[in-house]
């Protein structure tokens, strides 16, 4: 008990861990093995995406027609495809595309979804009515089907696939934020902020948004997995990345006719999709356990 003599002038040593919600979360996160595995997988793919052009042994567009459908060897680690392109190189470059699509589509849906969710939740009435119905309509389609419809309108390309994935997943974030805003709106500290004359915008940005962050982070991580798989699916259907882009889904559909003769052309891009998606799913589940204690089993 004698230690509890507080010296208000004493500086907190820089090395000492300052207790706080984020630090607590980090400590809990480190103990969650599957989440750490997920994070490692993601970091691995991020590194691959960053250094792909530096370490890839070949050019991803380079065709060596003499070396078509060659089995994995010391020169071509993952073998070659039907145009004699090095699959290892293409898989490395594919990581750039998948993470790029995943990142921008998730950021896009979060930005738009959050904005709409806040408007619906905070201002209510007809704004809520219109926005909520819009979400209902978007959610009334199976997501991949809606993405296909949007790409059918815009025309097949990686860019349009990205837009369509962002639109399709927008209501997920929108609903999340709306529900959070509704539950926060009547909290006492919001009422008191209003009472002291705080402007709506300030309340939104300094109180409501920070408090909605946790579910968005969790959902965004899981949404990354969904976005990557949807982009690959669109690529597989010929509605996403176009040749010669080394997109994993497109690589699968281009090689599927050679599966009997050269199964490696199909195995490696598929494993890459699965691993990245697995990484984000593991991390997302772990973050939910850590950041959202109510969801814990």
């Amino acid at each position, binding site marked *: 008990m004698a230690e509890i003599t507080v010296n208000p002038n004493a500086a907190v040593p820089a090395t000492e861990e300052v207790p706080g919600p984020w630090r607590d979360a980090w400590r809990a996160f480190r103990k969650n093995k*599957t989440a750490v595995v997920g994070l490692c997988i993601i970091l691995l793919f991020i590194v691959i995406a960053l250094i792909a052009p530096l370490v890839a042994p070949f050019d991803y567009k380079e065709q060596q027609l003499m070396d078509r459908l060659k089995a994995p060897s010391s020169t071509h680690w993952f073998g070659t495809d039907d145009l004699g392109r090095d699959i290892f190189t293409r898989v490395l470059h594919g990581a750039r595309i998948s993470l790029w699509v995943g990142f921008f589509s998730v950021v896009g849906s979060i930005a738009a979804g959050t904005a709409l969710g806040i408007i619906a939740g905070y201002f209510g009435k007809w704004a809520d009515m219109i926005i909520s*119905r*819009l979400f*209902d*309509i978007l959610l*009334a*389609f*199976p*997501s*991949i*089907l809606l993405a*296909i*419809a949007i790409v*059918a*309108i*815009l*025309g097949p390309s990686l860019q349009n696939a990205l837009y369509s994935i962002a639109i399709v997943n927008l209501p997920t974030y929108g609903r999340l934020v709306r529900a959070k805003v509704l539950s926060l709106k009547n909290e006492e500290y919001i009422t008191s902020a209003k009472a002291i004359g705080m402007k709506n915008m300030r309340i939104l940005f300094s109180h409501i948004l920070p408090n909605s962050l946790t579910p968005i982070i969790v959902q965004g991580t899981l949404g990354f*997995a969904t976005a990557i*798989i949807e982009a*690959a*699916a669109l690529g*597989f*259907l*010929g*509605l996403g990345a176009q040749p010669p882009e080394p997109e994993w*889904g497109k690589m*699968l*559909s281009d090689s*599927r006719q050679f*599966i*009997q003769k050269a*199964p490696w052309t*199909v*195995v490696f*891009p*598929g494993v890459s*999709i*699965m691993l990245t*998606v*697995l990484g984000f*799913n*593991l991390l997302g589940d772990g973050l939910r356990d850590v950041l959202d204690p109510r969801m814990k*089993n």
Partner: protein
Amino acid sequence: MILNSYILKRLLILIPVLIGMTIIVFSIIHAIPGDPAETILGQKATEQSKEALREQLGLNKPWLQQYFTYLGDLLKGDLGKSIKTKEPIIKEILPYLAATLELTFASMLFATFVGINAGIISAWKQNSWFDYIVMITALVGVSMPIFWLGLMEQWMFSIKLHWLPSIGRMDQRDPVEAVTNLYVIDAMIAGRWDQLWTVMKHLVLPSVALGTIPMAVIARMTRSSMLEVMKSDYVRTAKAKGLSQFFVVYKHALKNASIPVLTVIGLQTGSLLGGAVLTETIFAWPGVGRYIFEAISARDYPVIQSGILIIAILFIIINLIVDLLYALIDPRIQYK
């Protein structure tokens, strides 16, 4: 009474959703950048044929008038004509729809049976090797791109092992007369047990591919729900009474663990319809998904519109049934 008004409210909410859906689907053809007629027919098409197509699709009329004509036709059950085959889509789509329903049903059967049992045994034998294998399979399963899983299945079980057929719905050389277009039922009606066997074999690979994600989700949910229930007092009492483990798990615990499991089964059934598009493409399964996919390649926009609309309506119906079932199954849920 409360339940009735809940159903009514649930149906009323559907009206704006259905209208919104038709607007989105209607807009598909109008949102094509440039001249839709040229996009559909190609740049070499003559002005005459383009004009004829515009006339057929009603593209010359004002937007609003077109939409109401479209809506009116829909209500009469007219989905328009396919540009490619010139056939009425409503007639063409029915066999495809049956194929999709058969595939979805088989997938759900696989997912539910395997998922629930794996989840139960996992919870029962918690922290055993079986539990670990199920949990790892479930984790990998939810992250599985189904189009890749489908390709790997074909490679393994058709090309390498020659156990199962890789594409199609039945042996086309000796087809069964189509009555319902659900081939399992058609084969039974015709009493063709040999064909029933081949039809079932054709179903295995696609339904496993399509059912893997729901299976994984169901297994995880069953396990966690069972673990919770197994800790409860009445389960301990049942054990103390000396009931057999099997009886306690499958009779007492499962009943109370089933509500969250039913929830995910419902949600997953809807999502299968999206996955069907991919599965049908890989396994050359002549369902609505494949119908849409082929229409996209052929720029047959009326077919794309109708296919998407049909699947979306099916999706809504499934979700509605699931919602209403909760009201019946779980008396603890109150609907206001």
